[in-house]
């Protein structure tokens, strides 16, 4: 099964809501752009029913180059984490597929 893409989402907006193809494409772009924009201003994004995108500041920690074994510090950084909402967790939990991803 191939992955769901922005093109698939735009196609659904076209089919179900009657947006024209250009509007549908722009809407999907805007959706992910605005979420990225908020996150890159250190703003959490909460999509009720789906989940929250949170930001975490990590301190510098010791790391290692797995190839050479050399010790190099991993710099302090900010990362995005996703916490699925209750509704999404429940929907997914019972997935009985045979091809774990």
């Amino acid at each position, binding site marked *: *099964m191939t*992955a*769901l*893409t*922005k093109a*698939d*989402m735009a196609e*659904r*907006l076209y089919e*179900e*809501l009657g*947006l024209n193809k250009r*509007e549908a494409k*722009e*809407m*999907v772009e*805007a*959706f*992910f752009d*605005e*979420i*990225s924009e*908020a*996150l*890159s*201003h*250190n*703003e*959490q*994004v*909460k*999509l*009720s*029913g*789906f*989940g929250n*995108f949170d*930001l975490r*500041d990590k301190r510098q920690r010791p790391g290692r180059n797995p190839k050479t074994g050399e010790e190099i510090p991993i710099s*302090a*950084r*900010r*990362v*995005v*984490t*996703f916490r*699925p909402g209750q*509704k*999404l*967790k429940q*929907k*997914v*939990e*019972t*997935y009985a*597929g045979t*091809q*774990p*991803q």
Partner: protein
Amino acid sequence: MTKSELVEMIASKQSQLSAKDVELAVKTIIDHMSQSLAEGQRIEIRGFGSFSLHYRAPRVGRNPKTGESVDLPEKYVPHFKPGKDLREKVNDSMKAGY
């Protein structure tokens, strides 16, 4: 930012669709994504990231109140891996002092 703030933000930046239309579109996108994951289908958004399912093996849990053990069946949980662009944008924001 909440879902309704996201809707307002998108609506304010374009003139063709009403806020109601944008709201419905955002809901449709989110439902599509949820439905896809519920069917075990990955989601791949270039630059933003990918959503997939991670397997959790069955285990014996414990009721923290009573101490009683409970059999927990295997399950899947949603997982998000941020894409390179998003990772870099977010990390740069820290350097920029946000």
